[in-house]
């Protein structure tokens, strides 16, 4: 093994070495610098390998031939090795990214870079506080120099401000060290840790406090960090990466190393500062529009989170390293990657990032980094987030969980806003070549992120997300991207069907129904995708398969970790899918923010339920006892209802479903929404009724379901956009299903399942129909259409069957749902919510009629006279759905009988009686086949009679109508379509106002308003920054006096 001393020696050697060279041999100097950084990285990596794989024990390296405290010693352990590797690798890769700047500025700049990396490594390695101070000073000087590398004229000012503030911190540190040495009699950290004098408080305690504050200042805590933000914004992005990934890691490790001296009393201070920083910086970041400054805020926030975790290290116990390490590694890799990416982008606003779209692999890298920062699976931050919330909940610290999750949600908000902008904005004009080496560094970093995800997964006691077959299959589609879309589409269908076939024997009836909808149903929708399979359709298949992978994992999840990981996976996949729509940028953002908010609620719920158990089976939810049980219920229910778009949490849905691509709308409507229902099913099956403060929570769910049904249906009535109409209708339909579940009786659950099946079929079918019409007419505004029945007869037929089924009119399958519904509600004592649900039923007729009438009936428009039937690939699945709707109407028992029996395991009372073809309940009976036969016989007889009477009827021309003996002027003025239900709106008035949209808009505005207001404190003035730092020190001292002995 190479001694860690060589890391420092090589750094110094390289710096002096290039200094000896001729000023003109810049190429050689650059090569030496790279070689030095590579060697340092290699030593760090070698040690890391030795610790992790070979199980080597940590070592102490003595210098000057004497043990401490007579000489400085260095420690090399797993944490040190990992950090040194990160720091040196960041330095190496940044050097490659900064090649032009370094070559321009010459050997001095290269020497300073080597010194900076060496000093950062020194901070990590040294065990001597004064030596720590020396390394910090070196970092400060080097940083001041490196900031100047940038072409940005503001860099000079930023560097100067940085120096001013750093000197304040250095003074504090030095004073602290002097007095700590005075009290403890040693400069060695390990000696001081055992020293009673420092831990005893008093003057020594104050001295230590100053030292700590100085170290904390190096982590750029909020709000004393304006100088750092200016550096991030103005510095060369290559240096930004070092400043964010390497400097922060070193500073954090210094805090971690030294805090032990002061004892546990100082830990709450770190947690408090860290959390304030995390939440505050993320909040302020919301209003940022400059990419690098945003990265600065995000860096500050992430480092704050790690600082908070350092404060919680006693509480986390042995999981501390995984948590802090996971967060730090995710931050370092992602932030360095993003800074390097930003160099490939010319402009500084988010829209400029659209340039990355020229290289899809860079979008992949971008997505990887964003997911890492947002703590999504399968990256280390995900495992860390999981462990952290569980540990905090187990220790009874829900307020900390809340703060962390709120901050994380802010962070996800701006990250995904940025990502969405990059994907949807128009790419800037003028194509410039992206250098291979720079692209290579970014891609390598992204791949490193995946490797780290696997490392954390393998080490996680909960399970390895990356090891899950469905996810691997979905990721394999990334590798298939170069293939043509037709091949990928066929593969996707085969994969889904095969997945269903292989899982079939292991599913219970409930899983079987959901799996059939997700996998087989997904395959049917993919048939429609052939209509869009020209070219490669880059990005579509990995996203879709990611969503299906998440759904498949969700259905078979056995423990809460697997469930949550699946939930996050399906959320990301569906986000990418939704984002593909032309106008879907704001809606996709709204979707992902609501979904992640919901996911965080689920995470908190699971953590609360798990208490101290590491791996918590879903079946264990049964055993959760009061007082936690109702809170678990609330958190999980809220999380699931963000997916079912229950009222209040629904505002993301209409835009997301309406603006999605034609074949994506059925996926996210027909299939994705069912994930929420599956969750609610799981929740109610395991936890049953819960009450909070005497309120029965299932009753609350009942009301929410009823209100969703009513308001979803009502809003659908007033839409002019066909897809929005269907989207609002989904809110209503999901409301029915939630209502059915919340009835907590046998038939209620059966009805919910019936809705799961029916809604998938008719909503998928209708979305495809409307999509086909959109493809042909180029509009979704219904009043612009009309009279398409003769031109698109098959589409019309599919819509007709779809709306008859959906409205519940016999003889199609919707009626079965209504029949079960009526029987179900007779069993429940809660009667008032029924009133609401009764009101919403007939309203469905209004929008369904409007849908079919306005598009297909009435007056054909001139510009549509030549359009053709929708493409065969869109029609084929619709016909399949029609056949299924009729089949399911005749023989509902095929799907429901087993489920009926399955539900009996949980609620045996009032099961249905399947007596031949007649289905009886405790109250009534229903014979689907008889109904169908009677209706068909009557209908056919009457039709035959009419044909006999009226056999010579011929189609007359469009305007041949009774119109006061005149000819109507134009189809536009004759087609009664726009604002079709105006009287209804007048009658219901206030019920149709968008209160929830306004509520959420007000929340968003308030947050942005705060962020916009608060960031004015960062005036850009060096004196102000110095003053803020001093103020921060005073406040922390003042607060700490109360906390420490």
């Amino acid at each position, binding site marked *: 093994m190479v001694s860690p001393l060589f890391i420092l020696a090589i750094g110094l050697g390289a710096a002096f070495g290039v200094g000896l060279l001729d000023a003109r041999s810049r190429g050689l100097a650059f090569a030496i610098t790279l070689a030095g950084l590579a060697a340092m990285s290699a030593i760090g990596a070698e040690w890391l390998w030795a610790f992790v794989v070979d199980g080597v024990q940590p070592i102490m390296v003595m210098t000057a031939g004497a043990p401490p405290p007579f000489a400085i010693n260095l420690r090399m352990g797993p944490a040190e090795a990992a950090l040194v590797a990160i720091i040196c690798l960041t330095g190496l890769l940044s050097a490659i990214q900064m090649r032009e700047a370094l070559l321009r500025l010459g050997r001095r700049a290269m020497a300073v870079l080597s010194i900076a990396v060496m000093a950062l490594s020194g901070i990590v390695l040294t065990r001597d506080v004064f030596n720590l101070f020396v390394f910090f000073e070196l970092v400060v000087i080097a940083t001041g120099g490196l900031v100047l590398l940038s072409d940005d004229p503001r860099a000079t000012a930023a560097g100067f401000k940085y120096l001013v503030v750093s000197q304040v911190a250095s003074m504090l540190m030095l004073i602290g060290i002097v007095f700590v040495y005075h009290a403890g009699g040693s400069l060695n950290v390990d000696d001081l840790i055992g020293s009673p004098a420092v831990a005893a408080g008093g003057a020594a305690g104050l001295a230590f406090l100053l030292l700590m504050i100085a170290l904390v200042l190096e982590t750029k805590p909020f709000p004393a960090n304006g100088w750092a933000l200016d550096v991030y914004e103005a510095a060369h992005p290559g240096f930004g990466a070092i400043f964010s990934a390497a400097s922060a890691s070193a500073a954090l490790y210094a805090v971690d190393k030294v805090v032990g001296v002061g004892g546990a009393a100082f830990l709450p201070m770190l947690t408090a500062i860290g959390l304030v920083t995390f939440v505050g910086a993320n909040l302020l970041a919301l209003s940022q529009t400059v990419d690098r400054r945003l990265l600065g805020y995000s860096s500050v926030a992430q480092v704050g989170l790690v600082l908070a975790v350092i404060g919680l290290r006693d509480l986390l116990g042995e999981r501390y390293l995984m948590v802090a390490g996971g967060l730090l590694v995710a931050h370092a890799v992602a932030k360095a990657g993003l800074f390097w990416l930003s160099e490939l982008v010319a402009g500084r606003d988010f829209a400029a990032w659209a340039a990355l779209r020229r290289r899809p692999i860079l979008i992949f890298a971008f997505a990887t980094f964003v997911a890492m920062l947002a703590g999504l699976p399968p990256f280390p931050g995900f495992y860390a987030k999981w462990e952290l919330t569980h540990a905090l909940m187990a220790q009874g610290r829900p307020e900390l969980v809340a703060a962390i999750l709120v901050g994380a949600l802010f962070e996800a908000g701006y990250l995904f806003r940025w990502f969405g902008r990059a994907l949807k904005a128009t790419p800037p004009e003028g194509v410039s070549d992206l250098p291979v080496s720079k692209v290579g560094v970014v891609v390598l970093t992204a791949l490193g992120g995946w490797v780290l995800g696997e490392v954390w997964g393998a080490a996680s006691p909960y399970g390895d997300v990356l090891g899950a077959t469905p996810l691997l299959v979905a990721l394999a589609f990334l590798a298939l991207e170069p293939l043509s879309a037709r091949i990928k589409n066929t593969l996707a269908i085969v994969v889904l069907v095969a997945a269903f076939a292989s899982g079939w024997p292991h599913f219970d009836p409930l899983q079987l129904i959901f799996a059939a909808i997700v996998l087989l149903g997904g395959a049917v929708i993919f048939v429609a995708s052939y209509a869009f399979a020209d070219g490669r359709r880059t990005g579509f298949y990995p996203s879709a398969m990611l969503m299906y992978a998440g759904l498949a994992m969700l259905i078979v999840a056995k423990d809460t970790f697997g469930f949550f990981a699946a939930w996050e996976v399906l959320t990301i996949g569906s986000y990418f899918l939704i984002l593909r729509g032309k106008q879907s940028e704001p809606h996709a953002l709204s979707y992902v923010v609501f979904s992640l908010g919901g996911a965080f609620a689920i995470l908190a719920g699971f953590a609360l339920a798990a208490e101290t158990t590491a791996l918590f089976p879903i079946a264990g939810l049964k055993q959760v006892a009061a007082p936690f049980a109702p809170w678990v219920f609330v958190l999980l229910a809220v999380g699931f209802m963000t997916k079912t778009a229950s009222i209040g949490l629904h505002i993301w849905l209409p835009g997301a479903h309406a603006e999605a691509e034609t074949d994506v709308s059925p996926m996210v409507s027909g299939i994705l929404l069912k994930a929420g229902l599956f969750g609610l099913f799981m929740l109610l099956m395991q936890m049953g009724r819960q009450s909070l403060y005497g309120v029965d929570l299932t009753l609350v769910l009942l009301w929410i379901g009823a209100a969703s049904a009513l308001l979803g249906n009502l809003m659908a009535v007033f839409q002019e956009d066909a897809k929005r109409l269907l989207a609002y209708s989904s809110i209503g339909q999901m409301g029915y299903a939630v209502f059915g579940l919340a009835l907590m009786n046998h038939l209620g659950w059966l009805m919910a399942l019936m809705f799961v099946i029916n809604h998938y079929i008719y909503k998928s079918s209708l979305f495809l129909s409307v999509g086909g019409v959109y493809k042909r007419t180029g509009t979704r505004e219904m009043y612009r259409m009309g009279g398409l029945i003769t031109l698109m007869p098959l589409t019309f037929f599919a819509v007709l069957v779809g709306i008859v089924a959906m409205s519940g009119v*016999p003889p199609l399958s919707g009626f079965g749902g209504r*029949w079960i519904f009526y029987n179900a509600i007779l069993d429940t004592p809660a009667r008032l919510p029924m009133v609401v649900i009764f009101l919403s039923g*007939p*309203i469905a007729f209004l929008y369904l009629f409007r849908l079919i009438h306005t598009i297909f009936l009435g007056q054909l428009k001139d510009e549509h006279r030549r359009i053709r039937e929708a493409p065969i690939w869109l029609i084929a699945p619709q016909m399949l759905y029609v056949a299924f709707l009729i089949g399911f109407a005749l023989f509902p028992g095929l799907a429901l009988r087993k489920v009926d029996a399955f539900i009996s395991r949980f609620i045996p009372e009032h099961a249905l009686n399947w007596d031949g073809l007649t289905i009886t309940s405790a109250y*009534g*009976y229903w014979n689907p086949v008889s109904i169908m036969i*009677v*209706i068909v016989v009557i209908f056919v007889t009457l039709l035959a009679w009419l044909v006999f009477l009226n056999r010579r*009827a011929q189609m007359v021309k469009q305007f041949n109508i009774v119109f006061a003996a005149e000819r109507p002027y134009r189809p536009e003025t004759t*087609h009664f379509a726009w604002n079709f239900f105006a009287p209804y709106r007048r009658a219901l008035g206030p019920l149709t106002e968008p209160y929830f949209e306004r509520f959420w808009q007000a929340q968003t505005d308030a947050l942005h308003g705060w962020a916009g207001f608060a960031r004015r404190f960062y005036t850009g003035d060096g004196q102000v920054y110095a003053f803020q730092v001093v103020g921060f020190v005073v406040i922390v001292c003042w607060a700490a006096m109360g906390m420490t002995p």
Partner: protein
Amino acid sequence: MTFEWIKIPQSLLTLFIVLNYGLLLTALVQKIAARAGRRHGIPIWQNYVDLLKNYGLRTNITHGVMYYLGPVFRLSGGVGLLLFVPTIYGSEMFSNLSFAGDLILALYFIFFGTLGMALGAGESGHPHAAIGVSRGLSQVTAAELPLALAVFSVALQYHTLSVTDIVAAQQGGVAHWTLVTNPLAVVAGMFSFLGSMMRSPFDVVLAPQEIPIGPPTEYHSSYLALMQTNRAIFPVAKMVIYMNLFFGGASSWAEFCLKIFLIYMVSALVGVVFPRFRVEQSIRWFLTWAVPVGVAAILLV
């Protein structure tokens, strides 16, 4: 399950009786209403004349498939509704095809004809038809609500959704009728009834003066004849449900005729007294007056 083929002629007999009774009854009520307005009114056989005339007329015109099917949907809805409900209590002969489903089937089947008719009218391309449908659907959503509440209340009261069982529970004199045992439900149901009979004040759907006859504007000859046939059957079929739910059902055709006539007279009486509501007015009326009664009915049952 074995099907008894004798059910078919028996059902046709029910249909025949109800059709004739419906033709006479609607004419009679129209005449009574005319007399209330100091007019002479139509002859009692006028509906037969109209029907025969329209069936006799020949036409070469259609506006398309849905237009053609509209009247078929409409009449199928009326006939089906009639046959899915037992007409005469205690009579196997006139239990019709009620083995296929219970009350819920009947309630949802009401929409079958409405929807088909609306689609047919829509394809005619006439704006008045579309306006009529818009008004009709808007109004029916509010008018249906008190009925749904009343039905729910009655089903809770008798613990069944089977029409036969509900009638059975009301046997043994007027005191056992739902009218007496659950008056709130009956009031709510009858409010809803007013809204569904296309008589004033809830007849803006057809609104003769504003949108000449509304949805059926483009229909004529045999199309119209089919719809006129339905106009005789459908109200009676609907009233059979009301009779069975609220007024003890009927154990003979005489009792049937009397009760149906009296139920019809409720809407006729209200119709001659009150002027027409606009759609939003009638929606508000149902929500303000009828729904609270229905809510009380389900809470107090």
